[in-house]
């Protein structure tokens, strides 16, 4: 069932996780994957309410795999417009070949 697909990656602040997941679900994507991340960029606001010293990961990295590249671009646009003025974040697109998925 090998299939070309787009992987949209969003790296942003952990506080936004719940909200962004809602946007992903609303976009019609068939799924997403979250990993804990930390990092630095140009903005670097960061305030999850956990102490910085005890909290290792204040960012999240979200992967959304989809065959609908336009939808991925649209989703990135929506997220960036809604949040990236006031929150740290980066969004990029990668091309992959999905070998197996329960639904895509």
């Amino acid at each position: 069932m090998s299939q070309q697909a787009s992987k949209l990656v969003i790296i942003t602040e952990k506080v936004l996780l719940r909200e962004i997941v809602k946007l992903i679900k609303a976009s019609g994507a068939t799924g997403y994957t979250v990993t804990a991340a930390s990092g630095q960029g140009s903005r670097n606001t960061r305030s999850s309410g956990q102490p910085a010293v005890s909290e290792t990961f204040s960012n999240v990295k979200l992967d959304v795999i989809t065959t609908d590249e336009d939808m991925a671009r649209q989703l990135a646009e929506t997220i960036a417009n809604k949040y990236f003025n006031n929150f740290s974040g980066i969004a990029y697109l990668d091309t992959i070949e999905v070998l197996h998925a329960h639904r895509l």
Partner: protein
Amino acid sequence: MILDALLDFATRLLAQLQSPTLAFLLGGILIAALGSRLEIPESIYKFIVFMLLMRVGLDGGMSIREANLADMLLPALFAVLIGAGIVLIGRFTLALLPSVRTEDGIATAGLFGAVSGSTLAAAIVVLESEGIDYEHWAPALYPFMDIPALVVAIVLANLYLKRRDGSSEKVRIWPIVKESLQGSALSAMLLGIALGLFTRPEQIFEGFYDPLFRGLLSVLMLVMGMEAYARLNELRRVAHWFAIYAAIAPLLNGLIAFALGYVAHVLTGFSPGGVVLLAILASSSSDISGPPTLRAGIPSANPSAYVGASTSVGTPVAIAIGIPLFLGLSQVVFGT
């Protein structure tokens, strides 16, 4: 008499500096400054916060059982007024200063109106060490001060932004209240209150939550100290006014609360210990639960300003100076 009081305050400050609570806080600042790689893991930190607030809540709940509910009305009302009042004061002082963005000033005032569970725990330990009685339901005033402060800050900031930008989204208050109540610190305390009120947790309170209270607080203070140092960098990047506000507000806010507490003392017999606790609730600024609520409610405000101000300066000032100050004041005023 005034001299006596000053002397007493100085002695108390010195003693307080040697108390484990403050000593661990300063120790945390020290080792962070020295570049130590000591780390209290996030999961331990979260669990400690749970343990402390559950203990405070259980104690409060068990004492509400025997309390006269009417006694709580006036202090609760005052708590609401204080929480909202602190933000209003900040709105018309800090937020109007030239180099301060208005929304940053309001958000900072919001955080200083809100309450810190760790400072509250520290105050309780000191009161109990000194053998000073207080209404054990007084910590339950926490949400009555915390939530109004956050709500008022978010509403004021959005009013301001709306006027400035002409946008017209309405601020809804219930989501802010819900968000606050569902936060981990407040919901641990409220659960503790409910369990203390409706069930029989005496044995577990005396055999587990209470004996671990002071020790766990010392660890938390260490974290708060390391944190205060770590956040200094953020604070340095914003206007100096935030640091100045953060140094003054805890004392001023506490004094206002002390005054109102005194009124409650006169009117309804609110205890001297309760007055001190009310002052410290006001003096404290939220480090854990407030920031996410503010970020969601005032997204354009710069968290480096308000988190830096609260964590790096506000909390150390409230604990190191506020606690002995209000204790000393209580001794002068109530003569105990």
